């Protein structure tokens, strides 16, 4: 089993690829979050055409598979728009971000719908503008519901980044094949399955890091809510006001 471990030199190459994977993950995560919030809120808009447009986007982004979307955006769209050689990382991030936005919008919509109606009514009573309502009242509370599924979604996107190697970007998976080429040429021969297994472990570690990050964020968020609760329950007049 000792030959499952590679040489430090080979791990250096892996790290190069991992860095690109993390970059693509970061870009698509940012785009995905923005789209999620935008379309998640738009799905609950008062205007019918906004709701309809958001629904079309969500169904499109979820119905088309991430690999198909990646090929369309990475190969077909640049030719159709005649933009020549666009940077692959950018195109891949757009594809993955679009994909993530579709799923994320549904998470955001579900979370907003789960906020008690009284909160909205209270903001109307306080004469807050719709933007203020979202920004200061609804979204902070929805965040607690959004975070856990959003962590899972981010791991799905991490898994999706492996697909960009099919377009030729030198990510973690592509480095495996590059390494395989060099080891075949001499060096220390190592079987492809061992290399791939090591790559799987790196993906696993990345996923655990994402997991831990989201757990940390959840705990931070919960900590902001917790100290108040005994306070509210403790004072009789506020406890009565709720009923």
């Amino acid at each position, binding site marked *: 089993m000792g030959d499952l471990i590679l040489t430090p030199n080979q791990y250096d190459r892996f790290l190069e690829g991992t860095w690109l994977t993390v970059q693509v993950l970061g870009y698509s995560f940012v785009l995905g979050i923005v789209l999620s919030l935008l379309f998640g809120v738009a799905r609950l808009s008062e205007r019918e055409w906004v709701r309809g447009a958001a629904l079309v986007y969500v169904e499109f982004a979820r119905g088309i598979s991430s*690999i198909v979307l990646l090929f369309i955006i990475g190969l077909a769209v640049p030719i159709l728009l005649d933009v020549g050689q666009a940077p692959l990382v950018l195109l891949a991030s757009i594809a993955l971000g679009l994909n993530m936005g579709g799923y994320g919008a549904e998470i955001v919509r579900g979370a907003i719908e789960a906020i008690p109606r009284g909160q909205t009514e209270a903001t109307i009573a306080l004469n807050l503008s719709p933007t203020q309502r979202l920004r200061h009242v609804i979204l902070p509370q929805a965040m607690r519901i959004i975070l856990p599924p959003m962590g899972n979604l981010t791991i799905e996107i991490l898994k999706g980044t492996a697909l960009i190697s099919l377009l030729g970007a030198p990510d973690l998976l592509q480095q495996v094949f590059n390494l395989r080429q060099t080891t075949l040429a001499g060096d220390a021969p190592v079987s492809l399955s061992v290399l791939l297994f090591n790559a799987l472990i790196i993906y696993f570690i990345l996923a655990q890091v994402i997991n831990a990050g989201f757990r940390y964020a959840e705990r931070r968020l919960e900590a902001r809510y917790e100290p108040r609760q005994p306070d509210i329950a403790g004072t009789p007049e506020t406890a009565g006001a709720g009923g």
Partner: protein
Amino acid sequence: MTDTLQPSQTAPPAPEQVEFQPHRRWYRRPEILGPVLVVVVGYVLLIVGVEEHSRFSTRMTAEGRSDFDWMYFWHLVPLMVRGLLVTAKATVLGFTVAAILGFFLALGRRADSRWVSWPTAAVIEFVRSTPLLVQLFFWLAFIRATGLITPEGAEAIGFSRSLLILTLGLGIHYATYCSEAYRAGIDSVPKGQWEASTALNLDPRTKWEKVIIPQAIPNALPALGNFLVAGFKDAPMGFIVGVPGILFFANTVRGEDFRVTEPFFLVGVGFLMASLPAAWLVRRLEERIAYERT
């Protein structure tokens, strides 16, 4: 509601003697039998009827100067459908593995002995959080290196080796998802049912067969359906191991005719046409089961 609220003038009639009728068996309930038959027939048609042609040669060429030639686009449709059917076949094969293996993973994870439950949980977590694409490459390399499945051996049971590798990879990947669905389904069986089984002194086999599973599976069905749709979206990846599915079609056309926009947009359209109705059906199922439960 209303007739129970009306005050009864006369003495209540003697309670009607109702003969004990055990719940009708599932095969005597048309509302269950119908969908099951449709699914089984579709399944058999896909597995027996769909052949894998790896040649996608076109009979016309697109107008060279334009970026998008509609005639060529329509010409590609039958080829795309052929690829889509192979992808669907791989999906149902892989999902069969996933649904069966996932159940045992769920049981293993709930096992009393932590020598069973912890490794199972570790495997589930590992497979779930690593990309299917890398796993497929891994299985391909692993099977080539060990010679576990030979091309001849695969032909003997009627499938190509590449399809078997995709089935294995997709099956194991989605088995970990399915195990979570089963676990949630089993956990949703009320505590009283477990206690009643113990009180009735049912042996473990009867308890699982007659009490737990009949209640757990309907609760797990919508999640399983969602994973079937998700598996369908991942099945095109099979082109890397050589399954002549929908992306294999697009890549072949790209290689032979040097056209990119038409085949890939067609793949997108074809994919949406298949996955949107599937997702809608799953949502219907979800609503229906939620309705029956209340």
